């Protein structure tokens, strides 16, 4: 520019552009599929460690197993994440933290429950201090094992990606405002009761 005033801006034909975009997004690509496809490659597990399966959780992102190749990397804050991995037992104190973290995450959000303890209590099934995580948050994939090996966790992430695309979890959740496959879980008890004065 040599300092001359700009008196006009060239744009394309907006009608043609809108028509093409509509054809591309809704006709060819189907926006929902794009959303689902993108979600499968941006699963961010939040940094919430519930129990000793955390040792295998950490090993899953180590160089040998390298779960980052599946598009998942642990991230710090619940506001920027969409994915919780419950590592084993959830105690009564931790149930409150788990629920609050889940509530803070933006939609769509997914949960993997790792280990026998998260399934039905495992070794601690008659303990007085544990709750079952599927009573607190809706769980998408359970992994058996005590603890499950890193391969198991990697497989669960792949399984979650598969079910997101097959069941259109992410797009329908966003467009219709609800989860297509199940009811929204709200805990029966007040999990944070112990903390209130």
């Amino acid at each position, binding site marked *: 520019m040599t300092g001359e005033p700009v008196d006009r801006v060239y744009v394309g034909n907006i009608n043609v552009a809108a028509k093409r975009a509509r054809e591309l997004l809704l006709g060819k690509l189907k926006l929902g599929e794009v959303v689902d496809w993108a979600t499968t490659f941006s699963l961010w597990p*939040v*940094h*919430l*460690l*519930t*129990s*000793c399966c*955390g*040792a*295998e959780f*950490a*090993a899953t*992102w*180590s*160089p*040998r197993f390298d779960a980052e190749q599946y598009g998942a990397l642990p991230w*710090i804050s*619940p506001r920027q994440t969409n994915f919780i991995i419950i590592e084993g*037992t959830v*105690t009564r*104190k*931790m149930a409150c*933290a788990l629920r*609050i*973290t889940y509530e803070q995450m933006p939609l769509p959000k997914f949960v993997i429950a790792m280990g026998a303890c998260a399934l039905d209590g495992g*070794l*601690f099934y*008659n*303990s*007085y*201090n*544990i709750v079952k995580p599927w009573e607190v948050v809706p769980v998408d994939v359970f992994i058996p094992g*005590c*603890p499950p*090996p890193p391969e198991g966790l990697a497989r669960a992430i792949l399984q979650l990606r598969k079910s997101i695309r097959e069941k259109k979890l992410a797009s329908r959740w966003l467009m219709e405002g609800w989860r297509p496959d199940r009811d929204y879980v709200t805990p029966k008890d007040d999990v*944070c009761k112990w903390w*209130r*004065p």
Partner: protein
Amino acid sequence: MTSGGLEAGGQIPGFIVKKIEKEVYEIFIGPQHPGSGHMRIIVRLDGDIIVEADPDIGYVHRTMEKLSEVREWLKPIPLLERMTIIDACNVTLPYVNALEKLMDKKPSTRASYLRVLLCEINRVASHLYGMGIFGVFIGHSTMYMWAFGDREVFLELAEALTGARLTHTYPIPGGVRRDMPQELPGMARRAVRYMRRRLEEYRKIFVDNPVIVKRLSGVGVISKSRAVELGIVGPNLRASGVKYDVRIAEPYEVYGELDFEIPVFEEGDALARTWVRVEEIKQSLNIIEQAVNWLETHKGEPVIAKEDFDKLPKLHKEVYEREGRVKFVPAHATMKIPAGKAVARGEMGRGEIFYYVESDGGITPYRVRVVTPSARNAIVFKHVVPGHTLMDLPAIYGSIDYFPPESDR
């Protein structure tokens, strides 16, 4: 919304409104926080200086002491192992030792060597885990990647020996579950050689790294007398100049016959605690070599106590001869142990573990009390952290290698 509600003491559901002292700022760190693990630390700050720290632990309290009382004598072994699955043999060995004291049973020497071998493999893996997590805490991702990658070498070794990556359930009263496979000595020697070379590189990138040295030296200093008063254990104690290690103080298994040293540092700061871990890995590698050499040259002894082995039926002996694995008779699950009280202790990667086991002659323990190293190190948060800046908290946390599931039991 007006601010009148809060000032008038009005309450928003789910929030706590309380008065705090002037110019003191209260921060809740955790349990959902990259630098807190499975616990919460409530710190009160004056500017950037911590004036008070209150560790709020118990987020992983899984009631192991109570559950041990309702299960038969053998079943607490896999249960208690879940406290520290990264150090599984060390954490259950003193429980087994306590049972052996009550039963007046002595394991065969081969079993003792196998236990020591797995304990040292676990110790190396546990130290590498601690250093890797420490790396994450102070923003040194390379250390995490290296330590966790090299830890897999030792997990592979443990898997070859016991069949499980983490939860081995290897020692049992009177012996161990499995004999050493043929290929293990070669694997162990290769692992030791590899790890010695890697430790030199760790020194270059981590403990001698000028950034790390500046960050850690002089942080979280615990003097010798203070360390004794607080009763802290393990590498944290030895970094403060106290030469105490259960393997020397009250040798259990065959530690009395092995040749190793106890690294002691005088500084007592976070850097010294890291150095102790590095030096301990070197000593553990020496022990692994000695144990493997012994096991290779002394073959033929069963891996459970002689009197137990003679009692086994013929079929079970055949299984042992063929597969090197001990198959028990059902009576073992409901065995009774003579009444009495026993105390046993052992040295885990993180420090000393203490078991108190009481029997009333029944098929379940009457009382199992376990005090883990992390439970005794938790006091550091309350008494050492105040006076540091908030930035130093992850450095101190990582350097004492605190593992919440172990502490909460």
